[in-house]
């Protein structure tokens, strides 16, 4: 059997355990960093192989412990999961580089938590079993609590408590939905469930629909859809920069789960086909409007970045809910772009915050930014990319999405919505850039108290710039440029992924055809 699918989960597990051995002060930071980077390089190599083998359209199924699929847990690698693993790891490389500039020294156990976080992400993308998905959600959530709270105090603790309590409540809901689904259908394998949903008796349809709805509520809470988004700006604003950057992929995990279960388990021409998408489309639209207003209203650059992450998740909900091959493909391209660009803006916001001394990243305080050319240029690139202006990746993603919207009564308002909110985000980003980099003098009447709040005796020396932090931001922005340069192959892959997702018939056969080697079936 081909053991590659298990490696993206096993490598970080062992790397995290090894990193714990080198935590004593006498080792310094170097051995831990070597372990972290070795593990990341190995995972990247494995995930490149996985993408290459999945690109042919092959769905490889890995039986954990060699148990047959009806008894044990399977890992499933198709185009979508291979792509998501690769994106998560590339993003992880940027965030790890940023953390190696010094944050990993201040936060105890940083490298172990980071590896466990990657393990949870990879596992969630690779697993083909819903209960196992729950377990990997917990792995990634628990390490995200650690990453967010380690080395923190004060306000960050309160934001962390809210984040933890909210996520535990959501996990409880997840478990309730799983209990109901198992009670009704008698299986937890995603592909097997789709076969059982297709043969459901009419009296059970409503119950299964309720359980599936609960499951979607959980995923939408993770992806911060409208009624359940309140945790996101608060949490992301208070998280340390490298961690907030990595969290840009966390909302995408919820989206991934919605897309996977919505197409594979509850979408395979059964009685539940597409029952959630109309509601998700409307909620996604509402979230997008709200996120663009949040971008305009944010007083801090980090809050602005958090609302942009919210906006990108909402755009993806719209793209996936429309449910044609073109929109899902464009959505996947946009997903890759928005993960990288959003993370870059978080890292940049932290750089600006530290360089401005006491003024932090507040937009309403006028403060000097020493040596502002490099941050200014980086902000320009990130803002152009996030607002969706040509020639960067955000433009390509939004253009493809608008082009792919199926003709009909919905076309007009989807266009209006996406273009209108893009304009609002553009205004918000332009205002932030003007206030932060151009030092416009305050308005005479309203500016009085702002100047008082920032007087020279409060002056705090700006932190020195660290080359590695800048390199991390450049790396993440370079991914975006690479997405434009290699737009054709990436887009072909994304469209092929969408086609594979929307015709899920052969998943069940693949899973059933995977037979144990050593055991009697």
């Amino acid at each position, binding site marked *: 059997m081909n053991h590659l699918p298990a490696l993206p989960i096993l490598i970080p597990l062992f790397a995290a355990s090894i990193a714990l051995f080198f935590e004593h002060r006498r080792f310094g930071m170097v051995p831990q960093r070597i372990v972290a980077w070795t593990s990341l390089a190995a995972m990247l190599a494995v995930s490149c192989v996985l993408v290459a083998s999945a690109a042919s359209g092959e769905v490889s199924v890995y039986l954990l412990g060699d148990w047959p699929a009806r008894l044990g847990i399977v890992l499933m690698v198709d185009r979508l999961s291979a792509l998501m693993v690769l994106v998560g790891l590339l993003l992880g490389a940027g965030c790890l580089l940023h953390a190696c500039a010094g944050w990993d020294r201040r936060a105890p156990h940083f490298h172990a938590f980071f590896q466990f976080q990657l393990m949870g992400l990879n596992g969630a993308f690779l697993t083909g079993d819903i*209960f196992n998905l729950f*377990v990997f959600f*917990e792995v990634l959530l*628990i390490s995200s*609590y650690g990453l967010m*709270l380690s080395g923190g*105090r*004060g*306000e960050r*603790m*309160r934001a*962390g*408590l*809210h984040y*933890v*309590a909210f996520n*535990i*409540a959501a*996990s*409880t809901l997840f*478990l*309730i939905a*799983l*209990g*109901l689904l*198992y*009670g009704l259908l008698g299986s937890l394998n995603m592909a097997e469930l789709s076969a059982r949903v297709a043969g459901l008796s009419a009296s059970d349809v409503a119950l299964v629909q309720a359980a599936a709805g609960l499951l979607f509520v959980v995923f939408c809470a993770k992806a911060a859809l409208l009624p359940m988004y309140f945790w996101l700006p608060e949490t992301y604003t208070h998280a340390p920069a490298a961690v907030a950057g990595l969290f840009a992929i966390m909302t995408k995990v919820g989206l991934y789960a919605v897309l996977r279960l919505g197409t594979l388990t509850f979408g395979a021409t059964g009685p539940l086909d597409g029952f959630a998408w109309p509601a998700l489309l409307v909620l996604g639209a509402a979230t997008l409007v709200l996120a663009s207003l949040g971008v305009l209203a944010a007083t801090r650059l980090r809050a602005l970045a958090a609302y942009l992450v919210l906006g990108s998740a909402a755009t993806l909900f719209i793209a996936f809910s429309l449910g044609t091959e073109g929109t899902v493909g464009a959505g996947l391209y946009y997903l890759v772009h928005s993960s990288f660009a959003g993370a870059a803006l978080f890292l940049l916001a932290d750089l600006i915050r530290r360089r401005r001394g006491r003024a932090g990243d507040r937009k309403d305080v006028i403060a000097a930014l020493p040596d502002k050319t490099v941050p200014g240029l980086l902000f320009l690139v990130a803002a152009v990319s996030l607002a969706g202006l040509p020639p960067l990746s955000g433009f390509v993603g939004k253009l493809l999405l608008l082009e792919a919207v199926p003709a009909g009564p919905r076309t007009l308002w989807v266009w209006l919505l996406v273009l209108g909110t893009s304009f609002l985000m553009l205004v918000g980003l332009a205002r932030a850039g003007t206030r932060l980099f151009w030092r416009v003098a305050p308005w005479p009447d309203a500016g009085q108290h702002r100047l008082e709040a920032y007087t020279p005796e409060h002056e705090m020396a700006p932190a020195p710039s660290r080359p590695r932090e800048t390199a991390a931001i450049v790396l993440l922005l370079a991914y975006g440029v690479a997405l434009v340069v290699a737009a054709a192959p990436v887009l072909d892959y994304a469209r092929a992924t969408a086609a594979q997702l929307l015709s899920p018939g052969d998943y069940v056969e693949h899973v059933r055809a995977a037979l144990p080697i050593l055991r009697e079936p």
Partner: protein
Amino acid sequence: MELAMASAIGILTAAGVYLLLRARSFDVILGLTLLSYATNLLIFSGGRLVPGKPPVLRDGVPADLTHYTDPLPQALVLTAIVIAFAMTAVTVVLAIRSRGDNDSDHVDGYKAERDFLASEQRRHEEARDAARADQEEPRA
């Protein structure tokens, strides 16, 4: 048995949700714990409630669900219990730390707590005054 199980799940969930919506971290943690108990019972009953049947295979008994109870939900409950237990410990530590750092365990912070205490104080005083006035009125 079904009635007892169903009402246990319902009551635990109701109490858990009520506590979860309160403003103090201690209540919230208790609420999360009660919710996780309710969930564990729900998953357990997902394998159907059958008395007197073992979940583990024995020799000489045909291996099907008429002779055994479904062992999978019990395994799932074990996983859920472990995770819920660990998460309760994390939240308790976090709540203590947050209380220590921010001088308050109110969900909206120190100021909200002070306002809340002040408004409670006012309410008590008004109620006391009203009660006194009521007592004095008949005499006058």
